[in-house]
């Protein structure tokens, strides 16, 4: 099976350098530039363990079709310098067809990279930079690489303007000079990468998964956020804080996650759709509060941007290992919603939908994103107006009590389990939100009949709801099924497409709504597939085990699960499917 960097056209490259070398800045500019040249793109980044200023790598993949994951290999490695870069080596798969661009003055290339067999070309970046006022090697290299990739100079300049605009005119002006000098010098160097791109009909977006999650929240109607900073979720909060103010809302930095979850229960009780964002350790602190929200039927949304666990784990790297806590972390019988974003752009729709569902069903929605979605940026088509009706259709809004309602009992059972919620200020609707089991009027009760009735109400409103087609994204047909959830959808979609192209008909099913599981729909989508592989990025096959426990998988389904921090790559998934299907035959 051939390893691929791209799907027809485009290229995959990584830029590495030590702290202060500007590798990530160069990557951001290049992403903005390929977007302006008419390509789609995906920019991931990897940083060393230092708090600030350590070595880092920017990884860019671009092409004429939407890019949903990193490829199997890189065409180009742009080494601004090599200090500590060996730490990333396993994240930078190179081979004999790859090209390492560097400046001999940057020192020797780490042995581990040389061993890949990649060709090496030394370019005079340092000399060119020295010829400029405040010349910067990263900008010279960027100009040269841009030219080699066939990017128009005005796209590069516009990308630089968009990325460096906030840094002041002087920095921008010097950077543009460096980019131009690198670009001009590249004419002598041959371009190794094909280029083809069409100007898009609608202007595309440049957005990160964490920004997209924040945007999804406000699109869904969120106007209050309380949260405690944590990697890799903080950018959700950084994006939201100033913007909520513009929308008439606010963000409160809480003293801890015990506080933040209870704060949003309070604000939601007050009638304002509310959200928090965190990562595994924070979610662990929140679970008691989530149970309170379930019991008191107070809508709240938690965006959990997963990282490697357990404990502090690998805070800067991705893993899909919080599914178990999201599904089972709450004590008691506490039905709630668990969703997972299937891509960077999908963070917008999934979070907006989660807000609508939580509001309408008066419950908890946990949305699982992860570091690889949250901290990567992509050039994407603009999202549709609304996700699965979120924010617009009445069935995705909170049912608010009015004075004229004949029955104001807050927890009165209704046919669909949803009872109107009075907001403070409504004279007829006064009640006490209650975490103790209660009767229909809200008064505490330990009677079996009340417990049974309220448990049933809280479960029924979730299981009886018609979630429509948003529960999963399904692509392609075939006797083979790749079944996945969350961020693994990107590499799974690509793996399935490449398998189909190479004569192995494969259907990809990516679950967006994990709880309540849409079991019937899932079994129908799996159909009579001869081989089924459940793909996820954790050690213990958490989704596979969950689906089995729900009797939602045929007995011959197999699991491909491995922990982070290395991203799942399409080629590896293709190999796993082929091996698993072969085992099936023997």
């Amino acid at each position, binding site marked *: 099976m051939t390893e691929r960097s791209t799907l027809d056209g485009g290229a995959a490259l990584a830029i590495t350098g030590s702290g202060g070398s500007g590798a990530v800045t160069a990557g951001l500019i290049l992403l903005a530039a390929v977007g302006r040249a008419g390509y789609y793109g995906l920019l991931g980044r990897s940083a060393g363990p230092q708090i600030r200023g350590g070595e880092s790598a920017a990884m860019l993949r671009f092409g004429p079709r939407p890019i949903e994951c990193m490829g199997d290999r890189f065409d180009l490695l742009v080494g601004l310098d090599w200090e500590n870069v060996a730490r990333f080596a396993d994240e930078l798969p190179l081979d004999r067809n790859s090209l390492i661009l560097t400046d001999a003055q940057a020192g020797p290339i780490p042995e581990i990279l040389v061993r890949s067999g990649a060709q090496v070309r030394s370019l005079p970046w340092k000399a060119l930079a020295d010829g400029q006022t405040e010349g910067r090697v990263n900008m010279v290299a960027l100009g040269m690489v841009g030219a080699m990739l066939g990017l128009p100079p005005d796209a590069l300049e516009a990308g630089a303007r968009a990325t460096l605009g906030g840094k002041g005119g002087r920095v921008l002006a010097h950077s543009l000079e460096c980019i131009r000098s690198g670009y001009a010098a590249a004419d002598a160097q041959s371009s190794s990468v094909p280029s083809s791109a069409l100007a898009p009909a609608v202007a595309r977006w440049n957005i990160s998964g964490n920004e997209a999650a924040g945007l999804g929240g406000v699109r869904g109607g969120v106007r209050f956020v309380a949260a405690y900073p944590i990697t890799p979720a903080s950018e959700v909060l950084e994006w939201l804080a100033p913007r909520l103010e513009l929308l008439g809302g606010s963000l409160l930095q809480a003293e801890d996650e015990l506080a933040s979850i209870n704060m949003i229960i*309070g604000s939601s009780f007050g009638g304002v759709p509310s959200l928090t964002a965190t990562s595994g350790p924070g979610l662990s602190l929140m679970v008691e509060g989530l149970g309170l929200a379930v019991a008191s039927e107070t809508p709240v949304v938690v965006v959990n941007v997963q990282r490697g666990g357990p404990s502090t784990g690998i805070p800067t790297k991705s893993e899909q290992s919080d599914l178990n806590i999201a599904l089972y972390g709450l004590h008691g019988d506490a039905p709630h919603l668990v969703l997972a974003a299937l891509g960077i752009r999908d963070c917008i729709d999934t979070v907006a939908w989660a807000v609508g569902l939580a509001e309408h069903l008066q419950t908890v929605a946990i949305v699982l994103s992860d570091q690889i979605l949250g901290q990567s940026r992509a050039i994407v088509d603009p999202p549709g107006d609304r996700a699965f009706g979120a924010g617009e259709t009445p069935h995705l809004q909170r049912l608010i009590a009015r004075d004229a309602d004949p029955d104001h009992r807050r927890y009165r059972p209704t046919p669909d389990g949803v009872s109107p919620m009075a907001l403070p200020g409504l004279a007829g609707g006064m009640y006490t939100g209650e975490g103790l089991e209660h009767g229909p009027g809200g008064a505490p009760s330990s009677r079996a009949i009340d417990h049974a009735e309220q448990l049933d109400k809280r479960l029924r409103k979730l299981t009886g709801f018609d979630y429509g087609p948003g529960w999963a994204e399904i692509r392609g047909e075939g006797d083979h099924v790749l079944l996945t959830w969350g961020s693994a959808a990107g590499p799974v979609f690509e793996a399935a497409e490449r398998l189909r192209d190479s004569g192995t008909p494969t259907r990809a099913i990516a679950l967006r709504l994990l709880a309540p599981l849409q079991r019937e729909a899932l079994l129908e989508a799996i159909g009579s597939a001869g081989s089924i592989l459940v793909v996820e990025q954790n050690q213990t096959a958490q989704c596979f085990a969950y689906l089995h426990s729900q009797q939602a998988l045929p007995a011959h389904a197999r699991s491909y699960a491995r922990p982070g921090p290395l991203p799942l790559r399409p080629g590896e998934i293709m190999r796993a499917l082929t091996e698993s299907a072969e085992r099936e035959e023997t």
Partner: protein
Amino acid sequence: MDVAVITPTLRAKDYKSEVAPVWCPGCGHFAVLSAVTKALAHLKLAKERVAMISGIGCSSRLPAYVDAYGFHGIHGRALPLASGLKAARPDLTVIVAGGDGDGFSIGGNHFLHACRRNMDLTYIVMDNEVYGMTKGQASPTTQPDWAKSKLTPHGTGMRPFLPTAIALAAGASFIARGFAGDPNGLTKLLVEAIEHPGFAFLQVLSPCQTFRPEQKEWKHLVHPADTAPTDDPVEAARFIQADDGMALGLFYVRRLPVWQPQNQPTATPADLEREFVL
């Protein structure tokens, strides 16, 4: 407080709900409930504009007994829940009530940060130096030699938490102490606490009839504070450190900036989306 929400005709008993308290006969918390309803009536607050927020404990049962909006949350988290509500709904009068275990042990961190955040909240801690609800364990305010709990058969051996001193150090802008056995004094302090713009901390000595019967003696031990309230934190600290824990009254009150977001919308989500367009 917003003048428009005042309602003229209610009496204290109109603020009582129909739910019957679970408290033991003679529990100090009854007097606190009664003082709360009197203070609400005195201030003529519209019931639907009041929210009573609590955590878990005997004392935290109070919201259900008041005819207003309320939230009976989880142990120790009443202050964050109330802070979120007040941040989102500045139009409401938000009163938080709970016990010494709820507020100073499991919820201790929130107490510190609520004091320094200084939102316009009233925080009543019904201090009985014991965990009533879980049947009589030592709390942070229990004396070190109290050995009646099976969990601490030799006493806690720790100096008690000083709620008023800690509130002052953490930046609270209103610090007072009342006594369940002095209903009129307590009502007056509650009225002042609710009217105070900012975080008003009211420690209420509220005897636990069942697990601390010796607290019956408190009525002989309490005494009015011998100074007028000060706005000087140094003077207040001196007073609080010299206090025997039984002085009643308002000790410290100071106008400090109140944390309250008050943003008017000037954009829509669609406006924000433009930043992403290439």
